């Protein structure tokens, strides 16, 4: 009875709700609840200016989160994204300010530097079999050190390249649609997220990343060249970290070589809150973006309510633990 064993209609769709999707929905509800709460109880929260501030604060963490989402779904981790971001910003600074080259070279240079560093991490993990945690911990220090060395430990300003402002604070969209003052950095975050989401769900790269994260050995025994895809995954992560480097340095109008440490943890927190499993094989980019928004809404909301800044860090910690608990809880039920 082949006809009864195969039903690709509605039943298929309903069975398709994964725990990651469910948790993404949970995260989304939490985000809405937070917005409603602060909107009601924090007087100056729901203003246009504050909303733009929140978005701007989300852009860097959101892009870094998307970067590391690739690696985490593949079953790995990348601790070097924060300092890699800084190194790519310094790279852009050297190309644009020190060498005086035009903007596109700076953009390509930053992304290429990130992708290269990521590929190196991936190579040590895939070929030398160094655990991702250790390999990227090493890369975190290497990138931090190189950023300081190349910049001679001094900020590099982009005063000679006024167009650099286009990468974050300027709002190009407001010229097209007046009244929507969304800064370019935020637009870039959304574009990166949409492209990444398509890559993860629609392309062979994404399919491979999910397969690696679900069962690397089965993938290898299916004749898949596991090492090659792993290196590519880390390279993608590095390249996107480069985009984060461009956004952060554009906003500060300078590449700050001492910056970066700690950004990786915020990004990983956003990924986890967004429902991506740290054990690999499950996750979504949109979840990560929601996770990043939850973090910045909290920070901002608490500040607007007059709560001491440092409490935000405590609350973020609690949220991470709760998010992982929800993940475990949903998985047990599934």
């Amino acid at each position: 009875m082949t006809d009864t064993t195969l039903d690709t209609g509605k039943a298929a769709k309903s069975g398709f709700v994964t725990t990651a999707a469910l948790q993404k929905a949970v995260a989304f509800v939490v985000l809405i609840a937070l917005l409603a709460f602060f909107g009601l109880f924090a007087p100056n929260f729901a203003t246009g200016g504050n909303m733009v501030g929140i978005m701007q604060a989300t852009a860097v963490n959101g892009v870094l989160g998307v970067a590391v989402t690739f690696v985490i779904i593949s079953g790995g981790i990348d601790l070097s994204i924060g300092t890699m971001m800084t190194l790519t910003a310094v790279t852009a600074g050297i190309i644009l300010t020190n060498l005086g080259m035009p903007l596109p070279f700076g953009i390509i240079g930053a992304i290429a530097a990130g992708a290269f560093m990521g590929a190196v991490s991936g190579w040590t993990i895939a070929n030398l079999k160094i655990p991702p945690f250790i390999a990227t911990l090493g890369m975190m220090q290497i990138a931090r050190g190189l950023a300081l060395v190349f910049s001679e430990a001094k900020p590099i300003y982009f005063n000679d390249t006024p167009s650099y402002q286009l990468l974050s604070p300027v709002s190009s969209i407001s010229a097209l649609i007046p009244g929507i003052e969304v800064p370019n950095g935020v637009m870039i975050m959304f574009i990166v997220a949409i492209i990444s989401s398509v890559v993860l769900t629609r392309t062979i790269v994404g399919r491979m990343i999910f397969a690696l994260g679900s069962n690397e050995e089965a993938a290898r025994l299916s004749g898949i060249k596991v090492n090659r895809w792993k290196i590519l995954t880390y390279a993608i992560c590095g390249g996107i970290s480069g985009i984060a480097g461009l956004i952060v340095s554009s906003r500060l109008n300078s590449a700050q070589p001492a910056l970066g440490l700690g950004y990786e943890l915020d990004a990983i927190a956003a990924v986890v809150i967004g429902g991506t499993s740290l054990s690999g094989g499950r996750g979504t980019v949109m979840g990560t973006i929601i996770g990043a928004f939850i973090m910045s809404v909290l920070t901002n909301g608490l500040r607007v309510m007059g709560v001491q800044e440092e409490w935000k860090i405590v609350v973020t910690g609690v949220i991470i633990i709760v998010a992982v608990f929800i993940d475990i809880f949903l998985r047990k039920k599934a």
Partner: protein
Amino acid sequence: MNETTANAPPVVEMRGIEKSFPGVRALQSVRFDLRAGEVHALMGENGAGKSTLMKILTGVYQPDGGEILVDGRSVALRTPQAAQALGISIIHQELFLMNHLSAAQNIFIGREPSKGLGIFVDEAKMKRDAAAIFRRMKVEIDPAGEVGHMTVARQQLVEIAKALSYDARVLVMDEPTSALNETEVEHLFAVIDDLKANGVGIVYITHKMDEVKRIADRVTVMRDGQYIDTLPAASTPMSTVIQLMVGRELADQHRATGQGTADEVLRVTGLNRGKAVRDVSFSLNKGEILGFAGLMGAGRTEVARAIFGADPIDSGEIRVHGQVQRIASPADAVENGIAYLSEDRKHFGLVTGMSVRDNVTMASWGRFMQGGFMQDAALGKVAEDYVRKLKVKTPHIHQETRLLSGGNQQKVVIAKWLLRDCDILIFDEPTRGIDVGAKAEIYRLLEELAAGGKAIIVISSELPEVLRLSHRIAVMCEGRITGELNGRTATQEDIMTLATQRANAA
């Protein structure tokens, strides 16, 4: 066997032992006894119930019925500790030692001698006591030496020393020589002879006939969870033991149908990989089903993994369709049309968290993209095709494969390789974890595949399965092929004889 042990009363006696697991009657009214100072070999095919019986004797499992007597008194062995307290210890096939601790620390783990008001561990006393036990065993092992740095043979001796430190009078050894070389085996036998002389009774689980001849006093044979017979080891011909182990009538058993062609697709020559695969050579023809029989640990899976490029080989030549091929990775093997279907589908065969569609198409994803994008509609169509062809029971192709039954999971894996156009299929225990009804279906599927021109290798520990499917049977023992049999005429006895034939004893 000498006179004194023959007349001594048993240290341990097990009577009418019953044990069931969900869906399986593992032991039915089994009896067994052991005298002080004897080596009592326990033999039987995989799954005969030897291990279950010994787990009951050592307090790991509780029997559903029956009685255990130690020194003539009925006892309840509720935990391994209770068994140990009565002097019953087991040396497992897989050793349970802590690699980073010293020999002495391992021996006294959990009951370290203390000093200074019981706060500090008395390392010196521990070392002295361990050294004393090693002296008694007449072995030279440094009590302070880290166990992880020792050979398997020495680690085993540490385990034996640990058992002796509990004043063991009954020692169960589960295939103790499976990882030892000739010299180490002789050394172990010397230790066993010594233990015997000191009145320790030893239950010796093994598959190797020559070892039984060498050290055992009596042999007890089990089959299908039942006690068959106990015989004196010295005067019983080994062919009798094999016959008792195999037992079943084969007269009306279904045999392989059809036959392979003369078209050779795979030839392996002089394949070596460590101790697991030694000088293995064989060929495989189009349309043929070649069975690989042997006992657990004979090296069959290792041969398959080596051919498939999953493990690196030391030497050997692999010809596919007459051409010598260098196969360094599974990707190379798949390029050459070789597929390996592991017995452990959950870990090595399927990405269980992914859908039926993605698992079926996984090895062929490269074919289903356009400009980097996956052609999901096309993937779905071929997946549905195969689901229909192989009659995979799944509500839809988006079902995660972990939710399918064993038989249907196996079909998904088969579909994956058929879609990839692999024409050499290596099945490792194709029906493990699959229920009886689905088994027959898998057998039919394999026969259809062979009839359709695929070349198939079936590795199986179940003799009836090997005989049911194979046109030709290669039997392995200790990494070597000890013989090839015609699938139509071979008997279980023939296979068992070859499977227990050590190369040097032959």
